[in-house]
């Protein structure tokens, strides 16, 4: 593993990173109450595109870019998707940021389709596009720990120390109104992280109560409910990440999730239950089932132990199917699936942020298409790594 670039982003802890699904944009979250957006371009030395400030009274804990309209697999073609970002803060609010449609876009008629796409990308990732606050969402009672968009960008999930997950519905284009459509209070403690499945409306939450829970919407009445619980970690679960259905190693019948915990382990869980119901619901005719079908999950494996301290973040690569984890010990560990269910450590970097703790790792694609790792640490830096 080789350091491509270390960006001294913040003077205080950097907590979280997110990359836009189709644009080379990277956003940070920091104790200094700001979020910074960078362009993931090695050629232009990772320039700052925008600094989002003055809207939060406390740390920005989490960031995530909204997926493109219609989702990445079936993007909407008749309207250009403008990037947008959600920031969750310890001040218990969520801010939504976006840009105006660049004026130059309107003059592009008649050009070659491929050229247009290229120009779009350049314009949408230009520092000339001004990022401004579009909405400030209130509702949680205490610190927000994580925010996540579903794959179509019409649902935003947020979780908090108040032990609840809220799901907000919005028009993914205007991002004008955010209506609460569910308040999930299944966890018994502080909820650390939420993440959506990359191609379906399945939500996973990680908690201080040592469990991961999964949620789905009932087909009949649209109510959200807990459909699975992952017991096994012996400590706070800090983070989880779904395997992408197009990633190498994924199979159609199986949904997999990787989780990282204070107990120093990283575990993979899987569910093959596509249609099967539990014994309880089998007794009932289908018309009477009020709960969404429960999913049966099992622990598939514990990844080779490579952390001496709590593991704070884990990320499953869509491109290469590899998993990366980081934690308090400053290590970056990259795992690779070697045959069925057998995982080996492919690479490891110690002191990735010097003696500081590393809070977040994500897989990202640089502007030139190269896969890289991005990490954020207590030193306020964002480091980019080539494997």
């Amino acid at each position, binding site marked *: 593993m080789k350091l491509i670039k270390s960006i001294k982003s913040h003077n205080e802890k950097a907590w979280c990173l997110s990359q836009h699904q189709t644009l080379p944009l990277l956003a940070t979250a920091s104790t200094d*109450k700001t979020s910074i957006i960078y362009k993931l371009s090695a050629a232009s030395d990772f320039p700052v595109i925008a600094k989002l400030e003055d809207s939060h009274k*406390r*740390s920005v804990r989490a960031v995530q870019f909204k997926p493109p309209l219609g989702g990445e697999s079936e993007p909407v073609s008749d309207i250009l998707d403008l990037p947008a970002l959600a920031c969750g803060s*310890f001040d218990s609010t969520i801010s939504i940021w976006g840009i105006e449609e660049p004026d130059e876009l309107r003059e592009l008629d008649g050009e070659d389709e491929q050229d247009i796409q290229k120009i779009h990308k350049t314009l949408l990732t230009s520092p000339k596009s001004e990022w401004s606050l579009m909405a400030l969402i209130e509702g949680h009672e205490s610190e927000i720990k994580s925010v996540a968009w579903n794959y179509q960008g019409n649902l935003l999930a947020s979780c908090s120390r108040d032990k609840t997950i809220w799901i907000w519905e919005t028009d993914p284009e205007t991002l004008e109104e955010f209506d609460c459509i569910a308040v999930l209070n299944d966890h018994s403690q502080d909820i650390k992280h939420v993440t959506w499945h990359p191609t379906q409306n399945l939500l996973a939450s990680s908690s201080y109560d040592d469990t991961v829970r999964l949620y789905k919407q009932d087909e009949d009445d649209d109510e959200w409910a807990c459909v699975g619980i992952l017991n096994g970690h012996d400590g706070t679960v800090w983070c989880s990440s779904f395997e992408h259905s197009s990633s190498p190693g994924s199979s159609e019948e199986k949904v997999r999730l990787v989780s990282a915990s204070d107990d120093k382990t990283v575990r993979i869980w899987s569910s093959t239950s596509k249609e099967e119901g539990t014994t309880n619901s089998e007794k009932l005719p289908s018309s009477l089932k009020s709960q969404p079908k429960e999913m049966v999950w099992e622990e598939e494996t514990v990844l080779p132990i490579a952390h001496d301290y709590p593991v704070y973040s884990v990320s499953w690569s869509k491109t290469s199917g590899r998993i990366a984890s980081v934690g*308090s010990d*400053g290590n970056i560990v990259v795992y690779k699936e070697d045959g069925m269910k057998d995982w080996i450590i492919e690479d490891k970097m110690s002191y990735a942020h*010097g003696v*500081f703790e590393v809070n977040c790792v994500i897989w990202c694609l640089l502007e030139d298409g190269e896969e890289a790792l991005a990490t954020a640490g207590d030193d306020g830096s964002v480091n980019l790594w080539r494997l």
Partner: protein
Amino acid sequence: MSDPINANPVVLDVSQLPTRSKKDQTEADFVDQNLVRNVLSLSFLERKHYEEEESAGDSGSDSDMQISGDESVCVDYFEEEEEEIDAQEIFDLISSISDPEHPLTLAQLAVVNLNDIEVKNDTRSKNSIAEVLIKITPTITHCSLATLIGLGIRVRLERCLPPRYRINIRIKENTHQSENQINKQLNDKERVAAACENDQLLGVISQMLSTCK
């Protein structure tokens, strides 16, 4: 509610407490100078000033800088330090923290004890991750302030120790009925970080730390 939770704690005489200050006078002078500045930075007044600025709507980059500047004073002191930090050093940093409800220090109340502090330094390198383990003994087994005391100790050490130290604060075994619960909360970096942005809590903690020598 204003009644003390433990009205009659056992109190140790200050002169009985272990200290290093006599054995190396010159070093102690150096320590004092720095710590005086450090104490100032943690004092209630200073913090209040900071809060006022913040509540006035000014996100206050000046005051932010001021705080981090003070932290670096602390860090510098240890970076210049020849010797490695040992248990006595840690004890000296936290022994004079005030109890939130008694006009006594944590050492006087035997909440912190030298024997319950362990420092694990990596012998390979001075720049590698090291660990400090502190076991605190609440004055009574249902002390509802144990978490607050632990938080005060953590804040003190986070501000004064170099970043390579991982601080592990635990309740001494069998001295509190909610031992596991408190241990988990005190060692959750995110909960601690959020607590440090709570003005009410910070006010209380600044008062606890205002007596630090």
